C-alpha cells in the first residue's frame, strides 16, 4: 500500500475532522454574535432625558468616576421580558448602579411595562430615536454594558443576561473592577 493510495482516505479524515470542528464550534458559539470593538475603549458620551421627567438629562457627566451597568431594554423586546426577572432579583445586589436605556420605545408602553413587571433600574433614560444605542454598537435588545470608573467599557452582553452569564461573566467582571485601586 503506497502513500498515494492512502491519500483519499487521509483527505476524507481531514474533511470529517473539519466538519466535526465546525459543528462543535457552532454549538458553543452564537454565530450572530458580533464582537464589539468598543470593549476596552471609552464608553460613548451621552446625555439623555430621564424617563418620566421632561426637563432633566442624565448621562456620562453624571456617571463619571464610578462604575455602572447600562442595560438596553424596550417594551417591544421579547427577550427583555425573559431577562427582566433576573434584573429584578439581582439588580440591587450587583454593587454597581444599574442604568436602564429605554431603546426606541413609546413612553406610554415603557411606563406600562415597568409598572407591570417592576423597575429594577436606578435610573431610566430614554433613547427615543436610538442614536445613543448606535454609538454603543447596539444591534439587538437587550444588551448590557459594564463601564468602569474611568469610563472604559469592560464587558458586554448581547441578548438576555441569564443566571449562568451573571455568575460566570458579569459578577467576575464587576469583582475585577472592585479589585482595582
Amino acid at each position: 500500500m503506497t502513500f498515494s493510495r492512502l491519500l483519499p482516505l487521509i483527505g476524507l479524515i481531514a474533511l470529517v475532522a473539519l466538519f466535526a470542528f465546525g459543528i462543535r464550534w457552532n454549538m458553543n458559539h452564537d454565530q450572530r454574535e458580533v464582537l464589539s470593538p468598543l470593549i476596552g475603549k471609552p464608553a460613548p458620551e451621552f446625555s439623555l432625558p430621564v424617563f418620566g421627567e421632561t426637563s432633566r438629562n442624565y448621562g456620562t457627566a453624571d456617571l463619571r468616576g464610578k462604575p455602572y451597568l447600562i442595560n438596553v431594554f424596550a417594551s417591544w423586546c421579547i427577550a427583555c421580558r425573559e431577562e427582566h426577572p433576573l434584573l429584578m432579583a439581582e439588580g440591587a445586589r450587583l454593587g454597581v448602579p444599574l442604568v436602564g436605556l429605554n431603546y426606541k420605545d413609546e413612553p406610554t408602553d415603557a411606563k406600562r411595562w415597568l409598572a407591570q413587571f417592576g423597575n429594577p433600574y436606578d435610573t431610566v433614560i430614554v433613547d427615543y430615536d436610538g442614536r445613543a444605542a448606535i454609538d454603543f454598537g447596539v444591534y439587538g435588545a437587550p444588551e448590557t454594558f459594564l463601564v468602569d470608573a474611568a469610563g472604559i467599557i469592560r464587558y458586554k452582553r448581547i441578548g438576555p443576561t441569564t443566571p449562568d452569564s451573571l455568575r460566570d461573566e458579569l459578577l467576575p467582571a464587576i469583582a475585577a473592577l472592585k479589585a482595582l485601586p
Partner: protein
Amino acid sequence: MTLLSRVVLATMLAMIMLPAFAVDPLPFKDHAEELRFQELTRELRCLVCQNENLADSHAPLAKDLRLQVFEQMQAGKSDAQIKEWLTDRYSDFVLYDPPLRGGTMLLWFGPFVLLLIGAIVVAMIVRRRSRGLPRIAESTQSMRDEDWA
C-alpha cells in the same frame, strides 16, 4: 386599449420602477448622490438580519443606520469616513468587503493558497501519469488478454 389592459400595464410599470425608490424616501440633492448612497449601503451589512445588506433591509436598525449614512453624506464625509464611523461601533463585520490586515489574511489569501495547492497536486498527478504512460502502453495487450481470460 381596454381599461383592464391599461391597469395591468400601469401596475407592471409601477413594479419595474419600484427598486428606484429605496426602502425609505430620503431627500437626495441629485441622482449622483442617490447612486453614491445606494452603492455605499449595498456594501454594508445589516446587523439584525445578517445576510442582508443595509440597502435592502427593512429592520428598524437598518433604517436608522441608513439615516446616519445619509446625514453623514450631507455633512460632507467621505465613504471611508462613514465606514470608519460604522466599524468603530460594529467592527469589520458591517463591511461586506473586509479590509486587508493581519486578522483577515486567511480570508483574503486562503482561496488562492487552496488553488495553488490544488494546482500542485494536479501537476504532480499529471507528471506521474505521463512518466508511467509507456509502461501502461506495454502492458495494455497483456491486460486485455487477462480481461478475456
